[in-house]
Structures are given as C-alpha cells and as structure tokens.
C-alpha cells in the first residue's frame, strides 16, 4: 500500500514536471523552468523513498540522500520564486 502511494507521488511529480517543461518550451517564462526542476527533484525524492523503504533492507538508510535531494528541489523552487522577479 505504501509502495503504491510512493509511486503515485513520483508519477504525479513527473506529470507536473512534464507539463511545466512543455509550457517552458512554449513560452520560456523562467519560473516554469525552476519549478519543473523542483518537481523532477520531488519525483526523485519519491522514487528514493520507494527504493529506501520498500526495496532496500533496513540496514541501508537512504534518509540523508533523500532529504538532501528534496531540499535541493525545494531550494530551486524558492530560488525561482524569489530571484526571478520578472512580472
């Protein structure tokens, strides 16, 4: 059950990233670029969650990696929101 949820989360993130990349290619607003990177990072975060909790044995702990990936993703999003103040 948890496995399904993590995969669903990953797929949703990939969907968001795809839509944003497509729109960015269409008209190039930079916020679209940064937020698509964020959603790719979130997708990665969810995939790692799946791998860590479902696939790998409990001795291996991917938490630092997972969380750093997530933090990079969110940081990119915030950077895009704050820095690019084009109207």
């Amino acid at each position, binding site marked *: 059950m948890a496995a399904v949820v993590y995969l669903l989360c990953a797929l949703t993130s990939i969907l968001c990233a795809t839509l944003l990349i497509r729109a960015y290619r269409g008209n190039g607003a930079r916020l679209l670029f940064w937020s698509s990177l964020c959603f790719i990072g979130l997708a990665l975060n969810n995939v790692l969650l799946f791998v860590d909790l479902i696939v790998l044995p409990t001795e291996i702990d991917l938490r630092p990696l997972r969380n750093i990936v997530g933090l990079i993703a969110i940081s990119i999003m915030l950077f895009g929101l704050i820095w690019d103040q*084009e*109207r």
Partner: protein
Amino acid sequence: MSDVTLFLLAETPLPDQVRRFILRHIHTLEQLEILVLLLESAPRAFSDQEIAANLRTTADSARSRLSRLHGDGLIALTTDPSPKYVFKPRSDALAREARALLACYRERRVAVITQIFAPPAERAMLFAEAFRIKKGDG
C-alpha cells in the same frame, strides 16, 4: 445606498470570472471602452474612425486596440463595403464573460478600472496555464 453597502461594494473583489477575463484580454482603459461600446451597440458595426470619434481618441490607437480584441476572438471584422467591427465573440464562453464584465463595469466601475491597472502577475498566470493539458483558449 447606505454607507455600509457602498463600503462592501468597494471592498469585495470582482468575481473570479471577470477578473480572469480582464487579466487575459483587457490591458488598457481604451480596450475596455471599445469593448463596452461594441457590446452595448451589438449587432451594430463600427469603423475604426467611428470608434475613435466616439471615444475621442486617435484612429491609430483605436485600430491597434481593435486588432488586439479581434485577435483575442472577442470582435469580428466585416468588410461590407468598408471594414467595420462588431461584437461577435468566437465562443459562448467568451460572450458570457464579456457580458459579465459589462455588468460589473456598470455597477462597479472603479473596481474594474483598478483591476485593469493592477500588477499583471503574468508569471503566475503562465504557471497556472502550464497545467492546462489541452491547449485551446476559452
């Protein structure tokens, strides 16, 4: 109208539909007035000179607003014998939104004008539009 009613009218935001319509199609006061003129006089058609005279603006500036409104699918161009513009939206949805705008304009002109000059928040709109899977304007 009582003071309380006036205050409430001024403070409550415009309906979402009208607000989005303005964000998408109405960027100058002139565009608004041209659209209102054509809407109220529909199905009568006007040439750009007539519109310019009516609104006391130049024919050039009227023409550029008209072509923008035409590009957005809000007005149609007839050429019999001279080019004239008439309110004829491309879709029912657009027609409904335009009429809603007209209603708001009549009751709450200042709110509508304020919304036209509000900061465009363009990148917000672009972000939101990215999530429309099927492109095709409404």
